[in-house]
């Protein structure tokens, strides 16, 4: 015991009980990535706070407010595209459970196509508003509106890139711990974007429309 400190060899020291039960890669990665996702949620919290303090009447400085330019049913279609994309990703994960490679790829493809539909509708909406000179420069309220909605769209964009990478990896690799861990991380990321979208849809688009 008392000579333990002298015997530590930095080249060979083991930092945890390596052979104890086996290091559970999937659980550890999943929990770590879940903590990252919750930090991402704090990013959204700051943007919701900014939108909250910049959505007073004076924030729009007599310019257009969401009540004048939000189209609830258009954005509802966007909502459905995102929810269906999350559902397709869920089907892909059930196929994974049965080791069904084709099912995983089909689910990921469907989820990506629906994600592209969501993003396309978002870009179309932004271009429509830019066409009538409703831009982030118009007022502080609109800056906050654009930053919040487009940061969410950026998450969808990077999620889609990740999804393409995963389609490639599922086609070319075995179902290893690493590939499965990434698929699960992306599942949580994608589902969390749908959760954040519920907040954005209800409290930015719908509430903005009725104010």
């Amino acid at each position: 015991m008392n000579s333990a400190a002298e015997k530590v060899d930095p080249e060979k020291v083991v930092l945890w009980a390596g052979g104890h039960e086996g290091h559970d890669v999937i659980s550890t990665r999943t929990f770590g990535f879940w903590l990252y996702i919750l930090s991402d949620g704090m990013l959204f919290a700051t943007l919701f706070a900014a939108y909250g303090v910049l959505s007073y009447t004076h924030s729009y400085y007599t310019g257009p407010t969401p009540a004048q330019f939000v189209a609830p049913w258009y954005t509802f279609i966007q909502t459905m595209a995102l929810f269906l994309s999350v559902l397709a990703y869920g089907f892909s994960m059930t196929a994974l459970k049965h080791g069904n490679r084709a099912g995983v790829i089909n689910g990921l493809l469907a989820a990506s196509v629906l994600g592209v539909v969501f993003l396309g509708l978002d870009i179309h909406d932004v271009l429509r508003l830019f066409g009538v000179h409703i831009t982030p420069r118009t007022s502080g309220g609109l800056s906050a509106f654009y930053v919040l909605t487009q940061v969410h769209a950026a998450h969808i964009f990077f999620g889609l890139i990740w999804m393409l990478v995963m389609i490639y990896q599922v086609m070319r690799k075995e179902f290893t711990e690493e590939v499965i861990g990434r698929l699960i991380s992306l599942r949580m990321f994608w589902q969390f974007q749908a959760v954040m979208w519920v907040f954005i849809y209800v409290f930015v688009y719908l509430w903005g429309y009725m104010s």
Partner: protein
Amino acid sequence: MSHGQDNPLAHPEVQMANNRSYVTGFIVASLLMAAATVLVSGHLLPPFALLLAITGCAGLAIIAQVYFLLHMDLSEHSIWNTVALIMFIPLFVITIGLTWWMFSQLYLRTMPMIPGMPGMH
């Protein structure tokens, strides 16, 4: 959180995938969002009741998504994800709520009336 299988597909995180649960989450969240959209686009309620109603829709839709899609529950495998989420909620609410409260009080005390504007709220 240790399971020690050789086949990664047998891991509980993979095996908890469940189509029925995903479809339920999708249907519940979609119906609630459709209800909120109908209420708002038709102005079917007075403003404050409308705000309460759509807040209820959002809250229930989020609970459905977190439970049915993200598998947050009290099972041995998911408990720490759930704990992290529960601890996250006060941070999320306080960040938004305190900022909003601070600025609303500031506006009340400092914001001059701008000519041609309908005034504070």
